[in-house]
């Protein structure tokens, strides 16, 4: 494979461009809403009307507005139809071509994505191909400038300058903690070892987060390319993708992607006629939240119980089988190809001072528009919840947004004007986390929410260290006592103390962050707690 072949594939693909495109989402929420049947009906209708030479139907990844699926988008007009059923297919085909005979009128709900705040407020880098390309066709990814970043690094850059470029971009880990990606890469690159590994953490365990699932389902090659570039930069020749067992379609698309990349010589030996060899294997998780923690994840890849170990040594020095290992999240890898292609300077011009680029959020809970959005860092929660999410349905009022899952916290509506970046969320007692943003309305009691997350952490604690194993149980019982109206003011004090203890003394991130939902709700929603205290 060389650049000419790559260009040839892209050229063949671009010959479809003058056709009218009907794109139907066939992943995630739309798939559950029968998206595949809609797509098949569209294909059939186009075939029957013999419109193949002017209309092309394709199944694509997530367009974002998951709650309104199945979605169908027409290009070049950009018209979007929501809640499409198989019966709507002939009408949609008729609307694009006068040759199709249909006396029926257009399906009712349609709007222009370039006028709807859910879409106009977005800036899509990671999701640039989602909803546009067929995730199972490598040619479509290549036609969308895919694998050009890999070519550029292999043929025009040395590993040091790749690491430097990523450092310059200001990209920070999208998995939660926000560690500078360039710094992590530099550490692994510097480590001396014959064997190094790359791991893509796709164990998206936070309930309420589905960004990684959607990226993998909609644009798997972007993640593969990101991993390849990382491998070249740090000197690794083997990569693993650790993906949740709950995401069968993501696994399937990754397998297809890896197979196609191998066939084209983009994975294997001597990639792009360079001396770079790389191989990627998939490891399917088996349902343990703690495996999102990097040391536990590595234990799981080694076929053991997913139990964390103390750090240091960090994986960058001693990771998988004791070798230097680079672990990044799906979204982090998905940013890489674009940064390489468009340059660090371009990337660092987006976002806030210390948080560069964009962040994908899965907007869910009590809002009208739920789904996937990608916004520049520094977008306010008000814009996300109020404008893009279109507020709480049925005239309700938002009470809080929960970010960061069981390791994060709840941000009250009064602080919705906060621009979202790593630092500001931390200041409010929450974290960016992987990007779940769950809106809660006034009917939600925050003590219940805290108890819900504590029950989660209690169940998912691996049991290795006592503060987490026993502490989460005690915290859960205290919260239950409060909820049942049996607690007194002294118990709140106890709760705070215990939170502090678990936070300070737990071994890994799970335990250290487990009290966060309690602490943040205590801070912002003290009335919810006070109202439940026993009057005696």
């Amino acid at each position, binding site marked *: 494979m060389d650049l000419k072949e790559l260009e040839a594939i892209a050229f063949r693909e671009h010959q479809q461009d003058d056709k009218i495109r009907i794109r139907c989402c066939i992943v*995630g*929420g739309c*798939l*559950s*809403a029968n998206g595949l049947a809609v797509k098949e009906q569209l294909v059939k209708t186009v075939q029957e009307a013999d419109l193949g030479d002017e209309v092309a139907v394709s199944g694509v990844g997530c367009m974002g507005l*998951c*709650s309104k*699926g199945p979605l169908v988008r027409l290009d070049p007009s950009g018209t979007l139809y929501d809640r499409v059923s198989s019966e709507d297919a002939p009408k949609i085909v008729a609307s694009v071509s006068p040759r199709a005979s249909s006396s029926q009128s257009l399906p009712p709900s349609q709007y222009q994505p370039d006028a709807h705040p859910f879409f106009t407020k977005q800036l899509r880098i990671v999701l640039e191909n989602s909803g546009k390309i067929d995730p199972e066709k490598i040619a479509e990814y290549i036609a969308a400038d895919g694998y050009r970043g890999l070519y550029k690094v292999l043929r025009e850059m040395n590993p040091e300058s790749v690491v430097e470029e990523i450092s310059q971009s200001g990209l920070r880990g999208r998995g939660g903690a926000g560690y500078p990606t360039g710094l992590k890469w530099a550490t692994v690159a510097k480590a001396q070892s014959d064997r190094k590994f790359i791991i893509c953490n796709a164990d*998206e*365990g*936070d*309930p*309420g*987060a*589905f960004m990684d*699932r959607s990226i993998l389902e909609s644009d798997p090659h972007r993640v593969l390319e990101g991993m390849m570039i990382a491998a070249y930069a740090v000197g690794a020749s083997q990569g693993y993708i650790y993906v*949740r*067992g*709950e*995401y069968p379609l993501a696994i399937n698309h990754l397998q297809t992607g890896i197979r196609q990349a191998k066939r084209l010589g983009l994975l294997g030996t001597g990639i792009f006629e360079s001396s770079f060899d790389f191989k990627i294997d998939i*490891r*399917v*998780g*088996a*349902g*343990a*939240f703690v495996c999102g923690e990097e040391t536990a994840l590595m234990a*799981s*890849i*080694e*076929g*053991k*119980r*997913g139990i964390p170990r103390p750090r240091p040594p960090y994986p960058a020095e001693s990771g998988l089988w004791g070798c230097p290992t680079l672990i990044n999240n799906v979204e982090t890898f998905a940013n890489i190809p674009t940064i390489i292609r468009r340059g660090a300077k371009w990337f660092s011009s987006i976002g806030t001072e210390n948080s560069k680029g964009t962040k994908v959020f*899965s907007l*869910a*809970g*009590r809002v009208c528009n*739920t*789904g*996937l959005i990608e916004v520049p860092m520094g977008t306010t929660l008000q814009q996300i919840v109020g404008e893009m999410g279109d507020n709480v349905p049925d005239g309700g009022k938002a009470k809080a947004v*929960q970010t960061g*899952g069981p390791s994060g916290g709840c941000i009250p509506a009064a602080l919705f004007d906060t621009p979202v970046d790593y630092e500001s969320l931390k200041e409010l007692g929450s974290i960016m986390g992987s990007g*779940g943003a*769950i*809106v*809660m309305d006034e009917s*939600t009691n925050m003590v219940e929410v805290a108890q*819900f*997350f504590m029950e*989660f952490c209690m169940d*998912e604690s*691996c049991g290795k260290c006592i503060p987490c194993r026993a502490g989460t149980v005690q915290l859960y019982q205290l919260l239950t006592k409060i909820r049942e109206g049996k607690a007194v003011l002294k118990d709140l004090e106890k709760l705070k103390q215990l939170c502090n203890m678990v936070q300070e003394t737990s071994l890994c991130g799970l335990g250290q962050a487990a009290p966060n939902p309690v602490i943040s709700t205590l801070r912002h929603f003290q009335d919810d707690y006070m109202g439940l205290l026993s009057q005696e």
Partner: protein
Amino acid sequence: MPITKENSNIHPSGDKRFQMLSATMKRHQYAPDALIEVLHQAQELFSYLEDDLLLYIAHSLKLPPSSVYGVATFYNFFSLKPKGVHTCVVCMGTACYVKGSTNLLTSLEQQYQLQAGKTTFDNQLSLLTARCLGACGIAPAVVVDGSIEGHQTAESVIHRVEESLHHGS
């Protein structure tokens, strides 16, 4: 029958599924770190992991049975007991929780006199919960016999499960 290279994969019970399991282990070169992959395959073939099966895997991968048992019990995905003919998984993720998944679960529990995680006496239905299915955009979500259903209510989920129980799909 003498054990030769050709028939060493054949389990004494003659069950062909063991042959397929063996093939998986062989593909991983019987490496102990393939244990989780092998357990996934075993569960897919046998639908649950009984003790004998775990012993067989431990023996093949040259691992102590204790560590195989340890891994199988650590991960939520692996089930050591048989599941019912039909399954209903209620997602208890945050987004579903905020949209009332607790109501779905309670009504299912009452309807079938069944606790979450258990199977009915006639072995027809297992009621399970999931941490998060990543289907938050269509919350609350359930999975009935492998197919995911979004925007559920207490009535619609029972209707869906009934359909499954009576029509086998």
